[in-house]
Structures are given as structure tokens and as C-alpha cells.
């Protein structure tokens, strides 16, 4: 096993004292930011990006692995104790978890979530070790038309599968694609949408777009509708599980990743569907079905484990194909690009040390998460009491630091504000944020692949569909697009009765 020796080398990189310390700091910072109400994992990762700017790539990504898992775990703490899912993947956890906390079983809910995360991340990371080199090896052979097809699938996936309104999803995607056009055309060097401005010629940094849409947009939106007089968070002790709870949770912990990982690994996945499926499955299989809806521990353990494994799955597509399918993975990709590293099939050859160091740190980060966060949970719970003015003032403060740190230019702060206002408007009128971020990141890459494919075919459009792979992917795209119409048609023909 070649990847096994490389993984062992990776552990050699990850387990040096400096890197271990960085991973621990990353886990703590990630949890700290992720626990804060209103901050989901994507925003946590985006806000913490500048912390890693001064480090070398390997050290930065080891810290990043910690931030990533810490942020995700922090989010589930918030949804259990405050009933505020920081992201859509944690929605299901809030259903049962918050009920458990209200009936005095908060410690058990937190423990079920923490160990669920641990199990999901462990199994998911093993999945990465097995699957990623395999996909990378095969993806080396796939060409421009195939890439373009996968990217179209990702675009259609994030706009159609998620969210309530497809037209609003497409509007968001097109806004993102337009922002991605700003700057010099990579193939001819001609400027597009720069309006003669030198600052815009480099394009708008993806980090600024992400921080603007997530952090600044969110703060402005909340400022416009700030709720006064919240219910306080539910106080909680040290997480623990009794023997009865363990009996009920160990199977959901192991079943979650089976559902979560594959969904994360396909380029139109996300964590909403697998967490929901896991919830439904646990409800069906549970001996305590009557407890569902009033605080069943299986309903926390399964979905949390599924969410965590799904996050690992998204890393497979992100690392091997350069395709992010969740907001958090999108920000991770932006972090790679900051260092001039382009994830894709060649990453495993060119940056083997870095990739395997990162994968090893995912294991290390997972263990650290469990070791550090079980005892610290009561401390994190206190963070939920932070006064809202300080919370959102702090978010704007660190958003500004992050945007300024990208290149040290004041104009970036103005751009950040404009994008923040856009994020505000999108929230108010129900345009989802994720398609825009995916559009900014994948738009330019998709254009390159499309033009390359047409260059090879000498301008003939058949150049986009001349491989079996691309035809299959387009077929999936058509199914996703047509499915709701078919369903509406069959429904109207069969009267409910």
C-alpha cells in the first residue's frame, strides 16, 4: 500500500511539536469561533484565514484542519444549547438535541454529538485515505470537457438541490459568476468588468467575497432585525454518557458515516440530505421511536456522525478535483489558492508532503477535538451568553482585519463593504449565499476548461460532449433539472385522495 507509507510520512509531519501545537491552537480557535451564535463553520474558517497567512503552507493547513473540525463541532454545540443551527447541516441536530437540553439531558446530547463527530470524522478520513489517491489517479486522465461537465453539475447541484426556490438559486449563481469575471482574462490578458481600475485588474479575492457575503452581510442583516430579549442558553455540565445511552448510540455513530460520506463525496452533495436521511433511518430503527420529537439521543448521534463524515467526503472532491460543494470547502479551496496551490489530481503528486500532512492532521485534529472539547464544553457554553452588540461588532472587526490582511489595501475594505451590502440584500430576499460563492470560485475555472475543450475540437461544440464521462454527467444534470417538472406533472395527474 503506497498511500499507507505516505500516510505514515504524513504523521511524521503532523506530529512534530510545533505542528501538534498549531493543530491544538486551531482546534481551540475553531471551536471558540464556531460556538459563537450566528457563526457557522464557513464563516469561522473564513474569519480565521488571516491567522494562517504568515505560516508556511504545511503549517497553515495543519492548523486549518484543526480549525475546520473545531468550527464544525462548535456549531453543533450552539444548535444543541441555543437551538440555532449555524449551518444547514446542523438543523437536524437541533431538533432532538435542543429538546434533550431542555429536559436536562444537555450533557448527554453534547457527548453524543462530540463522539458522533469523532466517529464520523475518523471513518470519513479513512475514506479519504482509501478513495482520494484512487480518484486522483483516475482523474489525471480526465480532460477539459469532463471537468467542464463536472463543474456544470456542481453549479446545477448547488442551485437546484438546496434551497426552496430554484430561480433565486440561479440568480445567486449568476451574481457569483459575474463577480468571478472581474479582472484580466486568464487566456488573453484582456480586462473585463474592471472599468479602468487597476485595483480591480487582479480580480476580487475570493476570501473577500466569502467574508463579505458571510460575515458582513450577516451582521448587517441581523442589525436590521435584531431580536431583543433572547432566551438564554441552557446551562450544561461536563458531557458524559451512561451505559444505557452508550447502548443506544454506538450503532447510530457507525451508521451515520455510511450515509454521510458518499453524499459528501459526490460533487452535488452537501450535508443537508445525508443528515436528514440519517435522522429518518435512526427513527425507523430505534427501539425508542416514541422519544423522537421530544429528545431522542439517536437523533443526535446519527446525524452528527453523518454530517462529520460528509464533511470528510467533500474534502475528497475538493482535494482531487478542485471542486468545493459546501461553503466551508469553498473557503478551504480559497485558502489553497492563497498559497498558489491548485487542488486537483496533480496535487497528490506535486504536493504529496502537504496533502498527506493535511490528511494526517485530520486524524490528529479529530483526536484533539475529543480530548480538548469534552472537558471544555461547560466553558464553551458560557460563550453563548456573549452580549449581541459585542458579538457582531467583533465579527465586523475581524472581517475587516481579514480583508485588509489579504493585500494591505484600503480599497479591499470598500469592496468588502459593497459585497456585504449585497449579502444583506440576498438574505432579505431569500437568495441563497452558497451558489454565489461557488460561482465566484468555480466560474473562472469552468471558463478555462470550456475554452480549452473547444480549442481542442477547433470550435466545434461536440468537443464538450465527446467523452462518455461528460455525457453521463450531463445526463445527471438533465435529470436534476427535469425532475421537479416531472414530479409536478405526475402529481397534477393523480388527484390526492
Amino acid at each position, binding site marked *: 500500500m503506497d498511500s499507507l507509507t505516505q500516510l505514515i510520512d504524513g504523521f511524521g509531519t503532523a506530529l512534530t511539536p510545533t505542528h501538534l501545537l498549531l493543530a491544538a491552537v486551531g482546534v481551540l480557535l475553531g471551536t471558540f469561533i464556531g460556538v459563537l451564535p450566528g457563526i457557522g463553520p464557513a464563516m469561522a474558517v473564513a474569519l480565521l484565514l*488571516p491567522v494562517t*497567512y*504568515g*505560516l508556511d503552507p504545511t503549517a497553515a493547513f495543519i492548523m486549518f484542519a484543526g480549525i475546520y473540525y473545531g468550527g464544525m463541532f462548535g456549531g453543533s454545540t450552539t444548535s444543541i444549547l*441555543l437551538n*440555532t443551527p449555524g449551518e444547514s447541516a446542523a438543523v437536524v441536530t437541533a431538533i432532538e438535541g435542543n429538546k434533550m437540553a431542555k429536559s436536562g439531558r444537555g450533557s448527554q446530547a453534547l457527548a453524543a454529538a462530540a463522539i458522533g463527530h469523532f466517529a464520523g470524522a475518523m471513518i470519513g478520513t479513512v475514506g479519504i485515505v482509501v478513495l482520494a489517491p484512487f480518484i486522483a489517479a483516475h482523474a489525471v486522465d480526465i480532460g477539459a470537457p469532463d471537468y467542464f461537465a463536472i463543474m456544470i453539475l456542481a453549479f446545477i447541484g448547488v442551485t437546484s438541490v438546496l434551497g*426552496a*426556490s430554484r*430561480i*433565486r438559486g*440561479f*440568480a445567486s449563481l*449568476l*451574481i457569483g*459568476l*459575474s463577480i468571478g*469575471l472581474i479582472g484580466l*482574462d486568464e487566456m*488573453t490578458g*484582456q480586462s*473585463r*468588468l474592471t*472599468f479602468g481600475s487597476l485595483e480591480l485588474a487582479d480580480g476580487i479575492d475570493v476570501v473577500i467575497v466569502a467574508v463579505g457575503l458571510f460575515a458582513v452581510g450577516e451582521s*448587517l*442583516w*441581523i*442589525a*436590521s*432585525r*435584531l*431580536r*431583543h430579549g*433572547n432566551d438564554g442558553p441552557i446551562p450544561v455540565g461536563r458531557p458524559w454518557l451512561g451505559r444505557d445511552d452508550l447502548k443506544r448510540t454506538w450503532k447510530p455513530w457507525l451508521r451515520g458515516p455510511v450515509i454521510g460520506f458518499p453524499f459528501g463525496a459526490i460533487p452535488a452533495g452537501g450535508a443537508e440530505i445525508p443528515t436528514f436521511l440519517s435522522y429518518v433511518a435512526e427513527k425507523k430503527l430505534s427501539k425508542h421511536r416514541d422519544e423522537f420529537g421530544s429528545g431522542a439521543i439517536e437523533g443526535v448521534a446519527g446525524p452528527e456522525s453523518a454530517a462529520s463524515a460528509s464533511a470528510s467526503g467533500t474534502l475528497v472532491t475538493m482535494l482531487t478535483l478542485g471542486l468545493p460543494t459546501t461553503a466551508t470547502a469553498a473557503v478551504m479551496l480559497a485558502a489553497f489558492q492563497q498559497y498558489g496551490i491548485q487542488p486537483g489530481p496533480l496535487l497528490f503528486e506535486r504536493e504529496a508532503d502537504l496533502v498527506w500532512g493535511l490528511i494526517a492532521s485530520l486524524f490528529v485534529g479529530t483526536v484533539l477535538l475529543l480530548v480538548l472539547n469534552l472537558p471544555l464544553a461547560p466553558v464553551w457554553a458560557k460563550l453563548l451568553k456573549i452580549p*449581541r*452588540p*459585542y458579538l*457582531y*461588532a467583533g465579527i*465586523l*472587526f*475581524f472581517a*475587516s*482585519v481579514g480583508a*485588509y*490582511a489579504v493585500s*494591505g489595501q*484600503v480599497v479591499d*475594505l470598500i469592496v468588502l*463593504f459593497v459585497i456585504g*451590502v449585497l449579502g444583506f*440584500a440576498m438574505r*432579505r*430576499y*431569500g*437568495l441563497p449565499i452558497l451558489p454565489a460563492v461557488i460561482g465566484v470560485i468555480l466560474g473562472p475555472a469552468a471558463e478555462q476548461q*470550456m*475554452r480549452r475543450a*473547444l*480549442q481542442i475540437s477547433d*470550435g466545434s461544440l461536440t468537443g464538450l460532449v465527446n467523452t462518455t464521462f461528460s455525457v453521463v454527467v450531463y445526463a445527471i444534470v438533465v435529470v436534476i433539472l427535469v425532475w421537479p417538472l416531472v414530479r409536478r406533472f405526475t402529481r397534477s395527474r393523480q388527484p390526492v385522495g
Partner: protein
Amino acid sequence: MTETTGTTEKKDRSELGICALLAVLGVLVLVDAINIPTDFAQRGPVGPKAVPVVVGVLLLVVAVLLARDVLRGGRGEAEGGEDVDLSAPSDWRTVLLLSAAFLANAALIGVVGFPISGAVLFWGAAYALGSRAFVRDPLIAAGMSIVTFVLFNNLLGVPLPGGPLMEVF
């Protein structure tokens, strides 16, 4: 594709603003694309114009479709959240004050340095959001701003402008 939240007549119309925004953006992208000179330096059959033209046209199409959806009674579902009270009217005063605090940082950072402009941002934002502790707020703002400066500039190797305040040290 239509979801209704109890909304007023006023919001009905204001959502058309999003359609207008998309349409304006579409025209902007199209006009810019048409003005790209393509007579030189083109590699391959597809030049730098093609994608902007497609994006621009799609923006116009989506603007029209969204307008149709809105006029038929479709509503974008405003994003909820623990700190969001959807039944309350928009509080524009808070939004404007918050924006002012944010832009003050952008205006001041080059002149007085991050430690001061960052503190202004934090205090201003906390004030905008309703905090009125006139001793504690500025102290927290100054503390955060200085600690962040030292942490980023001196420990993490991410340069921030110190301004006149830091030259004293």
C-alpha cells in the same frame, strides 16, 4: 417555487428591486463584453467575450423570470436565525450606524493606523447595535484592537499599519 411568509404590500414591490439589480448587472456585463477588443491576441475559437455574453443574457432572463414569480405572488424567504426577528420592521438607523462604523475604519486605517481605527470600528459597531456602556465599551474596543495588532503584526507575521500610536513604542 413560491413560498409565502406573511408579508406586506410594501415588500411585494421592493423585491422587484432585486430583479432590477439583476437586469442592471446583466446589461453592465453585456455592454462590457461587447467593448472587449477581440481582433488581436485571441487563442482558440472562443475569445474572452463568450462567457460574459452568456452570463449577461442569463442575468436578464433570470431577472424577467424572477419578476414574473414575484408578480404572481412568489416570495423570497428571508433568512431566519436566533438573533433575527422577522416580524419586526427593518431598523435602518442601526444598519446606517453600523455601516458608518465600518467605513470609518476604512477611512481612518491609513491615517491613524489599525490600533485606533479598529477600536473606532468596534466601539462604533457596538454602539450602533445598542450597547451603551460608556466606560466598558471603549476599553474593550481598545484592548481588542491592540491585542489583535500585536498578535497579527508581531506574532503571526501579518502586517497591519501601526500608525503614529505604534511609532511611539
